[in-house]
């Protein structure tokens, strides 16, 4: 593993400036094949308890996280990232290895821990805040600003069960924002709520970061990783695959996902559809026909999507959406619009879709989400891959717009017209 190269001999508190030190942390779970819970089962099947599997959830993970760093942990479902988070939070005890933390750690494995539907917002806020590490006195002091932040001033005496789920999430998130810890461990909580709430989440994270807090974010969302994180780490099957620049890690994450995609086992992240087609790969090419994640602005570029048909198909509709770093769709192309008769395909056939366009996108980071749909009016999804690949547009000045279209500018004065080309 990556970490064992340097951490073998290190022990004791970390150096100044390191907020969190993880050294060769391993964790295995014993998974009994049949959960033996009652005396009768024990008496009837005295040897059955022996039958168990060991799942290595974490293998010698080592990482030093600097004070004030915004650090992302990414990986597929079941890769071990939540287990790592729970070890860092002190909820699981690692089998081997050491974890050192500086200052107060607040884990947010789930929003609203300890919320009780039969209690009022006030009681719930106080309980939740105490669970997350505030003293009751501090919790009461911050109560007003918690309610204000959640915009629930009019509903404080309402029982939580009468809250909408959105209100509950707002309340829970507000408590989280007000528990001031030095080290925040955040697990996927940003994936909830509407877009306005998400923006608020993001703003709060940026504020916490500006305060100099150290933040660990576990997520599937590569856009969030690239936007927020100073560094990121990719975990797969309990092994640390790579650590470093968020863009590289995101790319690696997509590769790991793609590599596994054809296989039937294991969950696939951000994938939807009925499975009658499978998107095997998706990449960008520059004008020379090379795979590239860096596309020069204003030059021809291609999106390539490789699809394996899992069932016979008549005129399927291939398409993709390119989104910018803020998640806004800037370009959507579907074969249906330009070439409705895509053809007949047999099960097992592999198709490569090739879309050429001039890269007029503004300088910045983008991701591509390809999809395949059935033909006809229903257009059911055959397969969809969210953010299957990402690329940067480089080589022009930042204009601030979403696209830089070829254009001309002229200035008209009363008598004369002066032209300047672009």
């Amino acid at each position, binding site marked *: 593993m990556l970490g064992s190269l340097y951490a073998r001999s290190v022990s004791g508190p970390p150096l100044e400036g390191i907020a969190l030190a993880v050294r060769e942390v391993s964790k295995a779970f014993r998974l009994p094949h049949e959960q033996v819970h009652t005396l*009768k089962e024990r008496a009837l099947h005295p040897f059955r308890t022996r039958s168990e599997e060991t799942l290595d959830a974490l293998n010698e993970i080592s990482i030093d996280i600097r004070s004030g760093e915004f650090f992302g942990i990414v990986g597929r479902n079941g890769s071990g990232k939540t287990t790592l988070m729970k070890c860092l939070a002190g909820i699981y005890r690692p089998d081997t290895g050491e974890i050192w933390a500086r200052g107060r750690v607040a884990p947010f494995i789930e929003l609203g821990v300890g919320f009780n539907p039969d209690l009022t917002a006030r009681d719930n806020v106080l309980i939740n805040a105490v669970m997350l590490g505030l003293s009751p006195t501090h919790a009461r002091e911050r109560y007003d600003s918690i309610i204000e932040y959640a915009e629930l001033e009019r509903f404080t005496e309402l029982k939580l069960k009468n809250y909408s789920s959105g209100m509950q999430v707002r309340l829970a998130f507000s408590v989280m924002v007000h528990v001031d810890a030095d080290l925040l461990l955040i697990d996927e909580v940003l994936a909830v709520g509407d877009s306005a709430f998400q923006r608020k989440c993001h703003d709060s994270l940026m504020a916490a970061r500006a305060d100099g807090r150290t933040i660990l974010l576990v997520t599937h969302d590569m856009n969030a990783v690239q936007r927020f994180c100073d560094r990121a780490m990719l975990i797969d099957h309990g092994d640390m695959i790579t650590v470093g620049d968020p863009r590289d890690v995101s790319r690696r994450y997509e590769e790991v996902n793609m590599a596994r995609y054809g296989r039937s086992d294991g969950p696939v992240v951000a994938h939807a559809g009925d499975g009658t087609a499978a998107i095997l790969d998706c990449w960008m090419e520059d004008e020379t026909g090379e795979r590239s994640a860096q596309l020069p602005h204003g030059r021809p570029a291609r999106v390539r999507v490789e699809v394996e048909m899992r069932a016979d198909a008549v005129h399927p509709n291939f398409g993709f959406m390119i989104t910018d770093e803020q998640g806004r769709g800037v370009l959507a192309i579907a074969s249906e619009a330009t070439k409705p008769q895509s053809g007949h395909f047999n099960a097992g056939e592999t198709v490569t879709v090739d879309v050429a366009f001039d890269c007029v996108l503004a300088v910045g980071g983008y991701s591509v989400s390809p999809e395949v749909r059935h033909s006809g009016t229903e257009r059911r999804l055959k397969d969809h891959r969210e953010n299957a690949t990402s690329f940067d547009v480089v080589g022009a000045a930042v204009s601030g717009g979403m696209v830089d279209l070829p254009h001309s500018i002229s200035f008209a004065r009363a008598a004369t017209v002066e032209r300047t080309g672009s």
Partner: protein
Amino acid sequence: MNVHAEAPARRITGPAALSGDWRRFLNLTMTLALTDWKLRFFGSVLGYAWSLLRPLLLFGILYVVFSQIVRIGDSVENYPIVLLVGVVLFTYFAEVTGDCVTSVVDRESLVRKVSFPRMVVPLSVAVSSSFNLALNLVAVAVFVAASGVSPRLSWLLLPLPILALIVLATGVGMLLSALYVSLRDIGPIWDVISQGLFYASPVFFPIEFVLKFSDDLGRAAMTNPLATIITESRHLLLGDSVLGASQAAGGKVMLLIPLGLILALTALGFWVFNRNAPRVAEAL
């Protein structure tokens, strides 16, 4: 830059029965206990009154049965007080241990999502029931005042057996809550044992009844810590009209058995809970 960079590094070793800051431990225990207590009779018309009414109603039934039908009470001086003390103390024990059994499993969402000293869970159950005990003891005091029993110095010693009861109930509760996580049979088993203890302990009769029946049986019954606690509480409250624990057990030396049992059970409960605490979140 991080303003907190100078904070000392702390090793994170995972959950334990007791860990970290004692103030946080206390805050958590009290917060959970109060919530528990608030929710216990939540939604019922009488609300908190039930915590007082429940043992009083049980007392009422037992009183009618044993003073009007079976007539045990006729030969006992101050039978209502003797009975009430027995009911209140035993109810506390049954409540704490019964609630503790499922306590860790019931709080699964907390145990799996937050790091906190695990001992908080059974302790908060004991504290929550102690609020009820305090209320019920007020009821006992009212009864005592109403029945014209004169105050005596020995009342000052009453906190001792009550403290022993709280320690015993908490210790047994810790043991049960830790065992229940991996062995769910503990639930029904403890129901039966608890019912058995009700009859094996001098709850609706004074220990003299067993001693009258057979000296050996009475001595044996007095090895039960609950019998010692209830008997001694009655003696301290009512004076010599009720046998003291040491006389009933056949000498002060014999009291070492129930005292030893209290300490042993509590130590065992703590040891088992402490041993299982780090892995409880995974076993759930």
